[in-house]
């Protein structure tokens, strides 16, 4: 991934991420969030992680954000006029943002730039290599995650039945 592609994608991504929090209409915010998810998937494609990219699109843009939109439309949320937000909430959000930015800067200084000339291992990002890793080296985390998701699904059904 060269610098030009990265920059164009980054500008688009930040632009739509800004729309998510700045646009008064919840539908536009949700749509921009879906676009942000899809643009992240484009990053994965350029980094040769095709499988991960498509999972990103199917799960986040295709399922999670559609459910968001579903809820927004079902409740028929109107435009949010930003004024009625309490001052303390804004202050908290500001402090949180500053702390996050400092953390990011510290992390950015610590990471070494990966060698972009370094050739990728054979079959990088394919279904075969990814699932092999998933079912050998990372079997325990994988199974624990499945159980967590199962618990969440069962919990949702139980709560819905009340």
């Amino acid at each position: 991934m060269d610098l030009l592609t990265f920059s164009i994608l980054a500008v688009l991504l930040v632009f739509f991420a800004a729309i998510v929090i700045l646009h008064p209409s919840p539908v536009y915010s949700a749509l921009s969030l879906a676009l942000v998810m899809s643009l992240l998937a484009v990053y994965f494609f350029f980094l040769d992680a095709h499988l991960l990219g498509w999972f990103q699109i199917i799960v986040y843009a295709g399922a999670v954000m559609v459910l968001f939109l579903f809820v927004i439309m079902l409740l028929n949320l109107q435009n949010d006029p930003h004024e009625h937000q309490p001052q303390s909430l804004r202050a908290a959000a500001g402090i949180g943002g500053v702390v996050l930015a400092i953390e990011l800067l510290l992390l950015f200084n610590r990471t070494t730039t990966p060698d972009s000339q370094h050739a990728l291992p054979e079959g990088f990002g394919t279904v075969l290599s990814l699932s092999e890793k998933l079912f050998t080296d990372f079997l325990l985390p994988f199974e624990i995650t499945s159980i967590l998701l199962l618990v969440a699904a069962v919990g949702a059904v139980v709560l819905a039945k009340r």
Partner: protein
Amino acid sequence: MDFVITAILTVFILANIMNLGGLLLWVERKGSAVLQDRIGANRAALLGKLPLNIGIINTLVADPIKLFTKEDFIPPNADRLLHALAPAIAMVPALISFIAIPFGDVLVIGGREISLQAANLNVGILYILGMVSLGVYGIVLAGWASNNRWALLGGIRASAQMISYEIAMGLALIGVIMLYGTLDLQEIARAQGYMIWGIIPGWGIFYQPVAFIIFLAAGIAESKRVPFDLPEAESELISGYFTEYSGAKQATFMLVDFLESIVVAGLVTTLFFGGWQVPFVMRDGLHLPGDIFYPLPSLLVTLIQFGAFMTKLAFFCWLQIMIRWTVPRFRYDQLINLGWKILLPIALANVLVTALLILIFQAK
């Protein structure tokens, strides 16, 4: 050179399915008339002279002219931007998902082997599933942007329905993926090119009949056609999510429906009916049972395979239209129950049984 080849293949396949989409409109009008014992479209014969009174000119030429010259009305309280964008957002995923479906084995030109598939993706199935899941955005946005309660209801129904049936669809595909061990649609089509006991073609349907039925049902639900046309529901919601659309935009939504059923037909063909495979025809010629062999030129084999693929594709498009005009519509609760309580458990059981059978036969 590779880029030129890819561009030609893409344009070729897109033109092909757009043509098929237009033709399906005629098949739908005339087919519904036949099923309902009507005559159907039979006017606008060429120059009023040729005996082409089967209405094909009518539907292919007169209908689009009519639709594209009608007033393009935007309701005063609609969200103008999203109202205009929604048909395009619905169109793009339906149109580009077909590029991952192979329509032939290889075309040999000047010693160069060209795989007849516009985009050779090693995650082809996931790509199409991703596009299918993005297809709901156009529908939902059309429903919301129209600022009409019927349209909104249609959009909400569409999002719930498509998410529910995506799960059954994906799980039905897992059995097929386990069987062939790849997500590449060209590889899957190639793997179906042998004969069981020398006479039955080794197509996916003979190994995964349950997955086929679940996939076809979920696929029809994904393309929002009767018996799953709750988002449109003419008798309840006027026209559902595209109630407030007219002219070319409404035509776009109609075309999207047809394109989606073509994509479903293409997937069914590739996964369960051998794709471009023709029984007994291999890459070098005709292999009949009893070691009879006729060599065929490579170009002829490619043409036969492409013809076979288009025939199978047209058959499944026709089948979906026949289902549409034969089966009555579900009630909304029946639709959701069918998706979650019937198709999903059967698909899960299919995955388990397939896994068990693969283990048993591999252990042997």
